[in-house]
């Protein structure tokens, strides 16, 4: 037969792309992950050196332990975070309040400097993990109609990468003797809940995911220039382009130009910061 059928064409494509994706993932784990672990270890060392408070043996061991298992933490944390308020009535002020506890209870308040940024970043990543998890759950339950296989792969991979990002930020916090952030971003969680309640199909879900990715990327962009520690800057800088890549593929999924753009769809050469949160 001279021409392949469409079905065979897709199968060939699937096999070829799967092989390429496998190669790239190997590279990520062989090269990318060790480099990130090194950055996080040095940053944690910087933070320990800079801290003025007395470091007791227990805290030291906690920090060292977090670093020692950092590799496992980065790849093993694969659960939906404890979303304070995320699954409840988002418009309730009491809900919003309870969703913003101090760091001693897994929240983002009560920290300063680079550690406050790390906590904010972790809460944003938690929110992305939560949203993708909820989306995957809705799709699995058949609430979004027919879900294309590429969308499923996208959501699962993006969720996995956001989980790694959250773990990276939390490993910094725990290494500095602080608590890992387990809540979702208190400011954005109500909005995400509100929008998710209106999601009825894949396009709606992609729109919501795009919003989250752009908020995260723009927040990192702002913070990468505001952070003080070199390794902290490097951590934000290595994550920001990945969030933008997620956004690019989402634009493609939506049939739009696959890059940062104005509300009217005009491509932009410079990523804006109007959606950045603090």
């Amino acid at each position, binding site marked *: 037969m001279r021409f*392949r059928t469409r079905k065979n*064409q897709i199968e*060939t*494509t*699937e096999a*070829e*792309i799967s092989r*390429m*994706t496998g190669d*790239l993932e190997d*590279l*990520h784990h062989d*090269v*990318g*992950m060790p*480099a*990130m672990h090194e950055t996080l270890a040095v940053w944690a060392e910087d933070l320990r050196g800079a801290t003025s408070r007395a470091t007791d043996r227990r805290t030291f061991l906690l920090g060292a332990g977090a670093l020692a298992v950092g590799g496992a933490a980065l790849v093993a944390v694969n659960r939906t975070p404890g979303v304070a308020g995320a699954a409840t009535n988002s418009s309730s002020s009491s809900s919003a309040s309870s969703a913003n506890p101090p760091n001693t209870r897994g929240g983002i308040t009560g920290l300063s400097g680079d550690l406050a940024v790390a906590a904010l970043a972790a809460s944003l990543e938690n929110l992305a993990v939560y949203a993708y998890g909820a989306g995957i759950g809705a799709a699995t339950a058949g609430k979004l109609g027919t879900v*294309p*296989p*590429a969308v*499923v*792969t*996208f959501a699962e991979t*993006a969720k996995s*990468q956001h989980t790694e990002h959250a773990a990276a930020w939390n490993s910094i916090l725990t290494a500095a003797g602080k608590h890992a952030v387990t809540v979702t971003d208190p400011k954005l969680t109500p909005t995400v809940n509100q929008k998710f309640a209106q999601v009825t199909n894949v*396009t709606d879900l992609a*729109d919501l995911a795009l919003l989250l990715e752009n908020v995260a990327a723009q927040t990192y*962009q702002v913070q*990468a*220039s505001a952070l003080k520690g070199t*390794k902290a*800057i*490097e951590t*934000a*800088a*290595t*994550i*920001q*382009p*990945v969030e*933008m*890549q997620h956004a*690019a*593929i989402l634009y*493609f999924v*939506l*049939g*739009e*130009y*696959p*890059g940062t753009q*104005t509300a*009217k769809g*005009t491509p*932009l*050469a*410079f*990523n*804006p*910061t109007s959606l950045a949160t603090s």
Partner: protein
Amino acid sequence: MNVDPQELAGLLEQSQDLQADAINGSKEPLSHLIEAHRAQEDVLDDGDEMANRHFADQHRRTIERKLATTGLLGVAGGGLLVTLLASPAFASEPADVQILQTAASIETLAVSTYATALTLPYIGGSEANPVVKKFAQVTKSQHAQHKAAFNSAIIFLHGKKQNNPDPAFVPVVKKAVAGLAGASAAQGTLGVVGLALELENIAAETYVNDMGQLKNTNAKKITASIMGVEAQHASVLLAVQALLQGGAPQLITLSATNVASLPAAAGSVGFPNAFYPTKDAAPMTQGAIK
């Protein structure tokens, strides 16, 4: 957010025109920026805080007025550039100048590479996939804007603009372009996509790496606003490359219904790393003016 393909094509056309206008019109405001910066130096030398603040305000208004006539404000994130370039915080940092010159040299090479690619019939001509062609046109324009931004930052840091391509990567590009001679449209398109992907990754990885090295806050902000855009270019090229290699060029199209036909793996091929690598970043002084 759904867009009719024809409407999108129109938007892209409009964008290309606007960006071309922005680039063409940017020469005058950029030269004005240089003049303004020299005047700023005189004011800053006085060490008068009130005068500095007054200058910054005046300077910002002047830049906004100049850029508004070019479309650069609306099209290219010009507001950000105005804020950064008008800031008195752009103090001299010799190492930063070298880093920015290297960045400008990479952008110069990217612009010339896309320009060359667009002369090929299967990238810029009638044989080209419309999406690939538009991407090449828009991306070339964006790299030109990046180069202009880096060079403007260099001027504000008392350095010399870098308009030459990165010397280390020029032979790589030349060899790749020579290898396209006699290639079929399919082979040639893959070759160009592979080359462009390599350049985009070098650019993105270099800028990610630069973020930890730059001292000047405004230089960091400009670099940060560009690095993710290069990463998006790489992401698109990865997806295009995978679809071409998988024998499904018909799926390289911008349509809201296209996603239903995409293979599952296409959903993740565009972002292979959870953390953007820096192993292929250019050395900081590689493209610096000696």
